[in-house]
């Protein structure tokens, strides 16, 4: 029997955008997410507004996530992954595995009493982040004493709604859907792979994502080592983009680096900001004015540094080639931010094999041809967002909506063909 339901795999911003559009068109949507919370990477980005909006789109994400979570047409399955797929367009059967969620989302009221009593450090039961949706608390098996064989009932006893259950086992479920939208997103490039830049060894070398999270949490920037305000900051572009392993531009880093630099400059105009780059990508709607505003006050240096050394006083010495003078230079900074790029998911191959879809040579899922934007080699399976290639938030939303559109069109056509028969 033909199913009109659609499965969306991944609840980052493009998956959420796909799910919402389909749901608003009256389609029943299963939205599955491997983590306990919805939103993916985009939910951890900070607002980069100064006295005016810097058009980073981070705020758009929360509205969409909230809308999706409460939408009656969307069934949200967190902690879930795909095990097996069979069938074809109009009639797919998907086997799903749910990992146990020890805190019942229906019962949790996010009161925080369990975290207060949890004896581990860091806490094993906690709220994932301030604006997490669903807002229920999550339990980390790796930290919880009970999973280490110890007896501990503190959270269980503290919970006023009896939302915590330890006796749960993984469950399996079969869904029947007409089409599938893959929106599994990206992995942030692991800056430790570039060992000479010292990420993970030097406390004051951060990634762009670290900086986003600092601004989300604290609202301002302080040096991780001594809590003082940084005076001299370097951003290094193209970390994990446009190099031997990554034959593509990540499309987001120039913009986020400049917007974060703008925010730092706004909070303290005396802070020196230097951006090391290969080619500045000052494109995109709304970016021209932003670039005009900051291009005089930010120092731009063409060339990407290859080495950072930390002096005994904690200063970071950045070694780079000054291309215009043709010689190696050294500059000191108190904070270095690595603008890490978008990498394909490390486990893309597993999902590609389960679904039977192709991977492109850069590791992202492959489109059918250059004149399609969401279609894959399998009819009825569509791509949305950064799992198909790097995209910023507006492009991811657009791509998610487009995937929903293609799924809806294909289901409408296949239904009318059947009616015609």
């Amino acid at each position: 029997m033909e199913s009109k339901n659609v499965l969306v795999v991944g609840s980052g911003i493009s998956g959420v955008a796909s799910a919402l559009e389909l749901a608003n068109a009256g389609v029943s949507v299963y939205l599955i997410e491997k983590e306990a919370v919805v939103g993916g990477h985009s939910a951890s980005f900070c607002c980069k507004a100064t006295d005016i909006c810097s058009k980073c789109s981070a705020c758009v994400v929360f509205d969409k996530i909230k809308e999706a979570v409460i939408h009656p047409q969307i069934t949200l399955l967190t902690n879930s992954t795909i095990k097996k797929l069979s069938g074809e367009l109009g009639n797919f059967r998907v086997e799903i595995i749910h990992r146990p969620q020890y805190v019942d989302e229906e019962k949790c009221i996010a009161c925080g009493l369990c975290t207060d009593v949890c004896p581990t450090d860091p806490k094993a039961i906690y709220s994932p982040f301030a604006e997490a949706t669903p807002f229920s608390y999550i339990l980390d098996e790796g930290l919880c004493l009970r999973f280490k064989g110890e007896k501990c009932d503190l959270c269980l006893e503290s919970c006023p709604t009896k939302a915590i259950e330890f006796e749960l086992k993984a469950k399996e479920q079969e869904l029947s859907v007409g089409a599938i939208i893959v929106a599994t997103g990206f992995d942030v490039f692991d800056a430790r792979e570039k060992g000479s830049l010292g990420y993970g060894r030097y406390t004051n070398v951060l990634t762009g994502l670290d900086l986003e999270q600092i601004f989300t949490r604290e609202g301002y920037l302080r040096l991780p080592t001594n809590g003082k305000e940084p005076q001299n900051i370097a951003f290094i572009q193209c970390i994990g983009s446009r190099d031997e392993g990554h034959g593509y531009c990540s499309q987001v880093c120039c913009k986020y680096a400049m917007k974060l630099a703008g925010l730092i400059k706004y909070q303290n105009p005396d802070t020196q900001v230097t951006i090391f780059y290969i080619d500045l990508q000052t494109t995109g709607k709304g970016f021209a004015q932003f670039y005009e505003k900051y291009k005089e006050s930010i120092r731009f240096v063409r060339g990407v540094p290859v080495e950072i050394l930390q002096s005994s006083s904690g200063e970071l010495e950045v070694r780079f080639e000054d291309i215009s003078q043709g010689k190696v230079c050294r500059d000191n900074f108190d904070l270095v931010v690595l603008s890490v790029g978008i990498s394909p998911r490390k486990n893309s191959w597993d999902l590609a094999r389960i679904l039977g879809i192709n991977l492109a040579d850069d590791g992202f899922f492959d489109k059918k041809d250059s004149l399609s934007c969401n279609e894959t080699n399998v009819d009825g399976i569509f791509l949305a967002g950064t799992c198909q290639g790097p995209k910023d938030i507006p492009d991811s939303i657009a791509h998610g909506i487009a995937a929903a559109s293609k799924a809806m069109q294909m289901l409408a056509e296949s239904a009318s063909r059947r009616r015609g028969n």
Partner: protein
Amino acid sequence: MEPKIGVFLCNCGGAINNIDFDAAVKKVAKFPGVTCVNLSSDLCLEKGREKMISCIRGENIERVVVAACSPEFQEHIFREVLEKAGLNGHLLSMANIREQCSWTHDGDVTEKAVELVKMAVNRVRLLQPMEKKELPVNREVLVVGGGFSASNTALQLSRVGLRTTLLEKEAVLGAGTEELESFYGFDTGSMISAVEVDKNIEVLTSAQMTEVGGKIGDFSVRIRQEGGEILRKYGAIVLATGHQTELALDSEPQLRAEGEAISGLNIVSQEQFCCMLGNSGLETEPKTIGFMFDFSDENSRFPTLTTLNNALAAKKKWGSEIYVFCKNVKVDSEGMEKLYREARDCGVVFLKSEAPPRITAENGRVKIEAKDVFLGEDVILACDVLVAEELYLPAEGAENLSSLLSIRRDSKGFFQDENVHLYPVGSEKKGIFFIGGCRGDLDLGRVLTDISSVVMKVHELLSSGKILVELEKVKADPQKCVACLTCIRVCPHGAIQLVRVDGSKEVAEISDLACDACGICAAICPAKAIKFQGYRDEEILAQIEAIQEL
């Protein structure tokens, strides 16, 4: 008569532990109009919700105050509870005694909690119910343009069962697809014939829009064609009017050498160069070719793409020496880095300079002088052909269309205001959408995405032939309105118009379909005639009074 108000307090399972709830209940019960006060520890859970419903029904409560967590979390759930209990969901006011009270302060906060509840009680007394209603919309769509984006939009809309009119100002469809044909093997002919045989698509060529009125679901559009004007009705309007290019040499005088005539030299546009490439009867093949981009406009993606495509094609066809002068290569689109590498591997030389090159004539050839940042030296190059920088602009007529439809354009003149909430394809006016080149310099992948996005958005609005809206969320009082037109001028959504009431007087009327409930008109109305439900002056003042009384 005073409405009966029910107050529901919740201690959040004990998580709110610095409020003396027994004392609070006693105080709240004395507030005027409050007929029942309930204390719960799990109001948002099923058990709590059921108790709430039976209490509302049993006590004949007409308005509800919930004093619990942030409305961010659960307001929608409590609205549902009200609806289930037979009340209008808007007759609810929430007092956030958790995040904004208990959790922000140390020590006893009973007093503040009671104040917050009092404010909510004062507000809820004045709230008015809002009804929802399905309003009919026209299911026809007008797509302006006749190129790749417009035609494909019409074809995809047809797949989901919506009828469209393609309005093309030229005599034939398929303008501007040359580049797609040469670089992606696109077949314009089969697209046009698919459009022509599609029963859901009506094609009007040599036709232009001359007047637009109405709003989403009911636009009336006057169209001028050869042989007269017609008036048509549409539910939505999609603009896909594309882009045009202009040689930067024309608009940027610093690119010209002073006093030296460069006319007559082989300085061409990308499009002219593309024609040269396609011309098999060329007398002499150019041996040295220069390209330049990213000096006059540093915010465009497109010049990099066309340069790379044309440079590679020239290299393959003529084996010419190719030099590309630019400031930054814009590779932030799909496949661009690969294309850039391919060009370099083929021997295309990229020379990056911070300042625009100086262009002069030398023995009939084009002399380009620039300071290359890698060499740190001046490079002087004489080439047979210079493909000059192009500016990427919205197509001719964009200004006219924007004033016809009263929609804003961005800082570069493209459609769509620079507002993140409108991306990808939305405009500030509901029912008007943009696709592709008319809203920015988009590569093929982004144009394809736009097309499908618009189809989804239009389908959502029009497919059922009706839209469910909340009635009179924002309303102008005809008694107070003096028709000063202030609201009509400030409304970004084009939702307000003047209508004649009682025979003679003209007053502002706000369309429930087109209104986005932004509240600008309510704030600005000098006669205080416009009310925004839930945020009316009296509702806000009543809350302020509540704190003053205590």
